[in-house]
């Protein structure tokens, strides 16, 4: 799945992309919200927002900033959650359409609401992302996965859920201990834990 093990900056960019595809959330709305929430220091204008989103490694022609510090990531996460809450009815309606399609055994993209969302998301993704491995069905699945995520980010404690999800999905896969060959001599001490393994969030 595309959203697993992605850096936080890429995950946030995808969340904003899905909101854009579903609810036509544009940069003006994001900037207005940032100012209302007191985050204008991180998102001063369209260029600042563009540079932050361009930090995603999935982006085509990455000319934006390479780094996203914790405060910026936090501000963006809080803004994403607030946007989801503001558009929760749209999100819920799309989920209801999906449930209805599923109950009739029909694929989701045949529903007008979901079909439009998936089309817009796929178009935006292919336009902006350098990742050309993703085909239509894979992107449609990604759009639906992000829709489910948005539903729970729109809950009253959605910001907390979003932040936990960002961190958990960034955590690298744990090596299976069962694959480690037993050694007669004690193995070398593991490297010191990296306190901030995702400083390049």
């Amino acid at each position: 799945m595309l959203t697993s093990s992605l850096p936080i900056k890429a995950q946030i960019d995808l969340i904003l992309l899905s909101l854009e595809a579903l609810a036509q959330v544009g940069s003006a709305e994001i900037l207005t919200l940032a100012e209302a929430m007191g985050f204008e220091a991180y998102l001063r204008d369209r260029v600042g927002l563009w540079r932050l989103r361009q930090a995603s490694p999935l982006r085509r022609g990455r000319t934006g900033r390479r780094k996203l510090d914790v405060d910026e990531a936090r501000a963006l996460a809080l803004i994403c959650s607030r946007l989801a809450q503001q558009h929760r009815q749209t999100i819920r309606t799309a989920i209801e359409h999906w449930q209805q399609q599923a109950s009739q055994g029909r694929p989701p993209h045949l529903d007008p609401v979901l079909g439009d969302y998936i089309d817009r998301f796929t178009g935006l993704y292919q336009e902006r992302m350098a990742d050309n491995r993703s085909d239509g069905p894979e992107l449609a699945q990604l759009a639906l996965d992000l829709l489910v995520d948005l539903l729970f980010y729109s809950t009253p404690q959605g910001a907390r859920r979003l932040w936990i999800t960002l961190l958990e999905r960034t955590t690298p896969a744990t090596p299976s201990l069962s694959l480690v060959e037993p050694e007669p001599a004690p193995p070398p001490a593991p490297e010191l834990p990296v306190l901030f393994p995702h400083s390049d969030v």
Partner: protein
Amino acid sequence: MSTTLSYSQPTCQLDVAAELLPFSQKLRRAPVRSLHFSLAFGEKLRFEGNDRQLYQLKTLVNQYIESFLTHPQTPTEVVIEGLVLRSRSPLEHELHLPDGRVILLQLTELYDLVTVLDDWSAVMEPLPELVERAQSILAQIPIWAKSAAVGVGIVAAFTLVTQRWLMPPASMVITSPRESNPSPLGMPSPLPESLETPQLAPLPSPPPAPPQASTLVPLPSPPAMPPPASLPAPPPPPPAQEEPRPQSPNQRNVVIQAPTEAAPASIEPVPMITPTVEATPVPATTLREVKAYFQDRWRPPANLDTSLEYRIVLNPDGTLAQALPLNGAAARFIDRTPIPLRESPLASPFAGERPILLRLVLMPSGTVQVFSDN
């Protein structure tokens, strides 16, 4: 002071009989103690329980959603003391109750359940500010002033708050995929503590606070909670109230109903009711049915050494209008009794248009007495 908090979503309704803590009046958010809850998914499911079970349900749902979001492609299952949530697909989730019932929740129903529990916990969980305030008050008291009365009073209040705030899900046995997937080499996951601290989940509802201020407000802003006493008593609801109330789908409601029970110090029922019910005779059948209801359900707690007395106000349709504790123990133990939520049926409808008054005595021996309270 007791009240009923109602949280409505399109497919889900949570009613919580709760007790306001003494200092809740001065706070933006009123910390309360839950006594009893009722959760309904329309006609599909009705589930009742006490404070502890509601916390278990909240913990279960939070664990499940976290696991579901962080491992979206792995089947998710979380178990807490007989409560089970299990994913069938992204759109379908099984909720198993301790009594064996299983309900299939659509994704939107699960979302509604999460939302009402979030709303409830925003009100229920005491505030860090409250604890800080209690600590600072304690620190400011000069030694000479720490007389027995002042000291005991403050410490008791602080303890009450702290216990609630720190109420752990620790006593619960939690099984989840996350537990079988510990961090590698015992390393802490990146920034683990910050997840549980309030810093990252402030999101104050409008008006938003600047970042530095928002870190002090960990929970979503709760619904406004005016003192219940200032609210007018709601009109008696129609007997059949099983259908979920019509709500706009995105509406998140907290309805505070009029106080259902008075504190032990003010035992008298609401004046509106008293004069109208005193002269109403109590049918013998109703007495028998109410007694049978409690006789079947009353399980005296081991540490109970006195009888619990309540005044029961019964609507003509046989449902509970009010239950008023008549002694201190009755107030303290009300969440351990089988007294249901308001409007729950206790007996079959009886002739007459006025409510009747009953006296209910629950004894430590397990004996139940019900008689007319005229």
